[in-house]
């Protein structure tokens, strides 16, 4: 049973990525082009027009947006996955968490393409790979767990309250601006800075910029706390999904 579910998740992820590639003319190129366009927008506004960037702004922005895009797409795609698959939920007896996990895995595969490109760009810009890169796998695990935790909770309730989707998009935009994704928290005056630094997303941003730009090892205690909070969120999300699961097949799309 468990092996069967693993096969189903892996093949569905492959199918999702393959179908997405086949849907558009540029296919794979969009995986990179779309975030690149977004990065260009922020660079134009904050660095070129408002001149609020300062030295090292562009690489810092690229890192922030690359990681944020990954987290956000896991949270939203994963979060809407049960709702958008209600047609299947009505026809077949499967654990509902299959759908968010598939969505998150395919976003993660896409992230790795973008991240590989990011590393090349950083290298060209004068930030070569360093020993601290060894800290990237645990950092990525923390990011994925955090996104999954939030995504599972969203996934559990969106089928019952689809209107939440409109709120979630706005909330995530606010979170992005409050977490130092597009600007460094170093520019924020104290004590606001210390309060904002408690945010798990801010911890992740800080750790990834430290690794990629300055060759610094992350703050393991902070990252550990993020991981623990994320695991708790995953468990809560999974429990809520399990609790609400009998109601999903009765819902209309």
């Amino acid at each position, binding site marked *: 049973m468990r*092996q*069967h579910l693993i*096969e*189903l998740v892996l*093949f*569905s992820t492959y*199918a999702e990525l*393959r*179908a997405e590639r*086949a*849907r558009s003319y540029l296919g794979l190129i969009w995986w990179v082009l779309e975030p690149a366009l977004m990065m260009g927008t922020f660079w134009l506004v904050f660095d070129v027009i408002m001149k609020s960037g300062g030295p090292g702004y562009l690489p810092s922005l690229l890192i922030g947006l690359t990681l944020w895009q990954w987290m956000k797409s896991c949270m939203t795609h994963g979060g809407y996955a049960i709702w958008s698959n209600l047609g*299947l*939920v*009505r*026809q*077949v*007896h*499967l654990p509902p968490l299959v759908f968010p996990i598939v969505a998150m895995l395919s976003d993660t595969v896409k992230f790795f393409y973008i991240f590989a490109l990011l590393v090349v760009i950083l290298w060209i810009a004068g930030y070569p790979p360093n020993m601290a890169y060894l800290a990237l796998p645990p950092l990525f695990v923390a990011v994925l767990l955090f996104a999954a935790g939030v995504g599972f909770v969203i996934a559990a309730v969106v089928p019952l309250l689809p209107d939440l989707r409109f709120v979630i998009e706005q909330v995530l935009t606010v979170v992005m601006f409050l977490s130092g994704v597009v600007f460094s928290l170093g520019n924020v005056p104290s004590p606001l800075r210390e309060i904002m630094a408690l945010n798990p997303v801010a911890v992740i941003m800080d750790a990834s910029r430290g690794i990629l730009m300055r060759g610094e090892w992350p703050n393991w205690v902070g990252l550990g706390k993020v991981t623990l909070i994320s695991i708790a969120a995953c468990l809560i999300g999974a429990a809520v999904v399990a609790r609400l699961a*009998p109601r999903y*097949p*009765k*819902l*209309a799309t």
Partner: protein
Amino acid sequence: MDTPDILVELRHVGVAFSAQRRLAGSRFWALEDVSLTLRRGERLGVIGRNGAGKSTLLRVIAGILAPDRGSVRRAPVSCQLLSLALGFTPHLSGRDNAVLSGLMLGLRRRDIVARLPAIREFSELGDFFEQPIATYSAGMTMRLAFSVAIQVEPDVLLIDEVLAVGDAEFQQKSGAALRARMAEGHTVVLVSHDEAQVARLCDRVLWVEHGKSVCEGPRDEVFAAYHRDLHLAGAAPVPSVDGVVA
């Protein structure tokens, strides 16, 4: 379970749906009080008028819907609804869709891969099997869908009115394949409003009316009671176009 032969047992099962998507919306009971016993090797037909709750009942047996009242006991067996085109994705090839659909229907990947030649053969798709199904006609898609579904071999096969699909020729072929499958001694629950079909394929019949099981038993007894009731209810025979009473 009292007897090892009993695969599924429903006792006074009721299933309620929300009438609207509101926090405190009213509910309606699609199933009110249905009891049935399914033994290994039985072919159970479920009859009843439109809206009697037949399809809901099938989804309860499949484990998709949990009962809101009453109890369902299921032996550790797989109960699978014969769903066509489950999980089909337009931009994937026929081959990939066959694997995906098979996995959703509960097959292991190696089993589907082993059956791919048979699926390709049965679906008569030829080289189209490797093409995205977005390029298929509706008939071709249904042929692929049926060819995948017929490969699934659950302990209990649940069928909801999909005995034949596609053009006339493929209808013959798919109907025959399904009848062969039923004749192999599998446990089957067949929902249909086509009485002749139920009479031909099933040995036990459950009659459901307004979400309640009216009676369950050997085919001929239940049909006799069903017809008596139709007659008493004053269901006037419907004259067909050329004046012959249908």
